[in-house]
């Protein structure tokens, strides 16, 4: 099996690098010949990068391109955008109210997500959602700074994580 897993990891890294390179190199009104040249260069670079790094990225795998996972990722992005707008309106309300309605505190919550990248995405989402900010991630424990802390701390995990954890589980399980 290691052979197959290595090939899958190699292909994943190569595809991601290729897409990133093309997105960075793309500029409007580029002549077709130049663009072809860039595509050849992108293939060379992505194959080199993948050959150098795939052994160090055992979690990378082609299974993340499965349509079900991409669907979960799409829903996650939509929820993220909605929460981002809500968070900013909430922060605008706090900042502009005459007597700052602050009740800050640091709470500790647990997460079940296993891969590091999933935890990173969860921490990022928590930072950009209403009134919360990730201070420290230590294993499966997250320390959250919260501007308006809730009454009952038992519900804290559910309120902070919202539906993000569900969608991320769909992507990374």
């Amino acid at each position, binding site marked *: 099996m290691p052979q197959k897993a290595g090939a899958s990891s190699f292909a994943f890294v190569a595809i991601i690098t290729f897409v990133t390179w093309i*997105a*960075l190199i*793309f*500029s*409007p*009104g580029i002549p077709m010949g130049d663009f072809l040249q860039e595509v050849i260069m992108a293939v060379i670079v992505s194959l080199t990068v993948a050959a150098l790094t795939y052994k160090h990225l055992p979690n990378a795998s082609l299974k993340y391109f499965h349509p079900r996972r991409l669907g979960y990722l799409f829903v996650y992005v939509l929820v*993220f955008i909605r929460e*981002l*707008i809500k*968070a*900013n309106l909430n*922060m*605008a309300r*706090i*900042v*502009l109210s005459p007597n*700052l309605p*602050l*009740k*800050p*505190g*640091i*709470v*500790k919550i647990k997460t079940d997500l296993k891969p590091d990248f999933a935890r*990173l995405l969860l*921490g*990022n989402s928590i*930072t*950009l959602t209403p*009134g919360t*900010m*990730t*201070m*420290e*991630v*230590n*294993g499966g*424990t997250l*320390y959250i*700074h919260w*501007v308006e*802390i809730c009454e009952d*701390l038992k519900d804290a995990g559910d309120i902070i994580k919202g539906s993000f954890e569900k969608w991320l589980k769909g992507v990374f399980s």
Partner: protein
Amino acid sequence: MIGLILYYIGLALCYVGSLFFILGGIGLYRMPDVYNRMQASTKTTTMGLMSIVLGVGLMQPYWIVKAIVIIVFIALTAPVGASAMARAAYKSGIPLWEGTVHNDCDAPSCKEVEQQ
């Protein structure tokens, strides 16, 4: 026609982004301690920058690909920077505001609490 509509949507997004920058500045001015200032400024300026970049991408439709690349990059890195700043402030021993209600980690580093 569609270009004109996109132009005005982009202009509105640019105004929204600039207003969020000002909100971040007011938050920096008014909030009582480092952590609350961090909350106010990072959220609003991240949102403002994303909004301005998207607005410019809509006003010049050929630029939209690079604009989306910048937005994805900001969405991935700005929260990481905010977390690093918060952890650095906490570990360098800056006290929480006296109105703080609850604190789950009392040592200079949360990690030390976890290991005991």
